[in-house]
């Protein structure tokens, strides 16, 4: 039976970087995995991302960061998520992420990290895995 309860994901592009190919193709892959994907568009402030996540009551915020600024961005966003009590929302991050930063991000509270080149299957099962 088709479930009424679908995973809702906000795919967001924080900051000034405008390379959105990765964000868009991942959004399409998540759609094809049966998820409902809200795409934020470019140049989002963290406040915009938070307010969108709340209004859309998403289960996952997926950030696409290509500029190298993933550490400062995620540090702030994880703090905001905690502060606003979005306990059920998982933060995942993709983009240009060097290996050595993956653990740093995980320690911050990022639920999963998908560096460039991660397959759609891994991303989809990684997100599904957050709810099992």
């Amino acid at each position, binding site marked *: 039976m088709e479930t009424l309860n679908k995973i809702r994901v906000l795919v967001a*592009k924080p*900051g*000034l*970087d*405008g*390379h*959105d*190919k990765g964000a*868009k*193709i991942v*959004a*399409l*892959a998540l759609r094809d995995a049966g998820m409902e994907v809200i*795409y934020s*568009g*470019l*140049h989002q*402030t963290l406040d915009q991302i938070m307010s969108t996540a709340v209004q859309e009551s998403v289960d996952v915020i997926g950030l696409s960061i290509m*500029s*190298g*600024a993933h550490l*400062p*961005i995620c540090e702030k966003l994880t703090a905001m998520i905690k502060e606003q009590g979005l306990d059920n929302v998982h933060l995942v991050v993709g983009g*240009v992420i*060097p*290996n050595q930063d993956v653990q740093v991000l995980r320690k911050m509270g990022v639920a999963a990290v998908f*560096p*460039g*080149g*991660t*397959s*759609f*299957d*891994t991303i989809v099962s990684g997100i599904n895995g957050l709810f099992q």
Partner: protein
Amino acid sequence: MGVARYIKDEKGAITEVVYQSGMKIKPGYGPQDLADAGFSYETDLGEPGEFPFTRSLHPQGYRSRAWTTRQYTGFGTPEQTNERFKLMIANGQNGLNVAFDLPTQMGYDSDHPLAEGEVGRVGMAVDSLKDFLTAFDGIPLDRIGSGLTINAVASIMMAMYQALGETKGFDRTKISCTPQNDILKEMIGRGAWIFPVEHGVRLVGDSIAYAVKELPRSNPVSICGYHIRESGATPAQEIAYAFEIARAYIDTVAQRGIDPSDFVGRFSFNFNVYGNLWEQVAKFRAARKIWAQMLKEDYGVTDKKKLFLRGLFGGGGSGLTKEQPENNIMRGAFYALGAALSGAQTTALCSFDEAYTIPTPRSALLSLKTLELLMDEVGLRDTVDPLAGSYFIETLTLEMADKIKEEMAWVKEMGGIVSGISDGMIQKKVSQQAYEFEKGLQSGEYKKVGKTPGKEDEGADVELHQYNAAWAKSSKDSLAAVKRTRHEKAVADTLRALEKAAKGKDNVMPPLVECCKAFATVGEMADVFRQVFGEWQEPIFY
């Protein structure tokens, strides 16, 4: 295999090959193929250096002059950028290609809250003329030209470059800069847009109209099929959309009463050399022809040199892999070979570590040396257009031209490129293709050496270019110092003049030059535009 679609039989022999642009490739080609395609040496090729320039812009190709190399450079503070510029020039680079950080590209100063964490990260931070004076210190601006990789605020940077030259004692007629200044491609691919599309196009128009009269050695716009290709366009679409974008810019300038013949010679292009080698060669040969024909037929341009498809054909970043990054060195060499066989005037390569990081000096030099090697060791300067006359290449070039024209016709049907971009039709097509291609790559339908379908990347250790938070502080301090020492009244006056021009129909370039000379900041000038023009709302993505 590769980026083309290969179908094999059970023994592993290839039975069908389809290139990304849609051409089906035969196992072999002969004279009959050329006859079937109605090939004519005179009309389809012409002599090298003669209309329609399929073979070459110059009669002798690289014999008379090797290509110009322009590696993309710039990071951190203007001081560091200056150092890297000098390193590249000392190693034989003959043009600069300046990278700006994201706050600068988006028209924010280093002290803006949105700039936090980004200052100096992917390019150099420029807040005011002071930064340009530092970055270009000791560079002979009358001999070395500069590509400026900036779009939404390209008009500001071009004005800044003129202010730089004049402050350093170089006459504006002697300096040469090539800002990218292609806002429409940003809306398709790279995302560094600010203002609504019609205002964005107006700024491009203003800067072209200004450069035609005041900056005779500068090329005010460099249309980037490159980024459109990186976003998922096929090689045929890359050329077609770039030409339709060029058409939009020509039209906007022509509407001011300027004859296209007076400025089209100053357009340059930035194209991508990524994909199947033969498809690339056919693409550039076909593109030279179509561009010359379009200018001649649609705009009545007759002067030979104004029909040239000038530009940088550079190795594409999306071909690189994170896996086994050393393979990217070889990839770069083959992309460069493709560029040379295509008669690239100017070229550059993505460095092998770019899938990870901003190039280190070692990797940037390696790219430069790869390019040098092709010209000086391998023999690519020997004779012009060496693949001409090949049954395969000539058939493919004709087929490629048809594909490009089909895409151009599609754009026309949508009411032109501006409307296609406003409605998101182009973006939709390109992202859908990018998605399909990525799926194909993951399933093994397309192949990149070093990438195994179904197997995750282990990651490899490469030297990383580290971001240094001290850059931001240095930029902010420098900005604060500028604001302390400049004449505030002059700044306010010049910004007011800019606002007046922006609100009306006057060209914004003269007031921009005055703003720069008064040390108004990039953020202050961009804010004037933001207030007058508003900001673009992206089309729906679905």
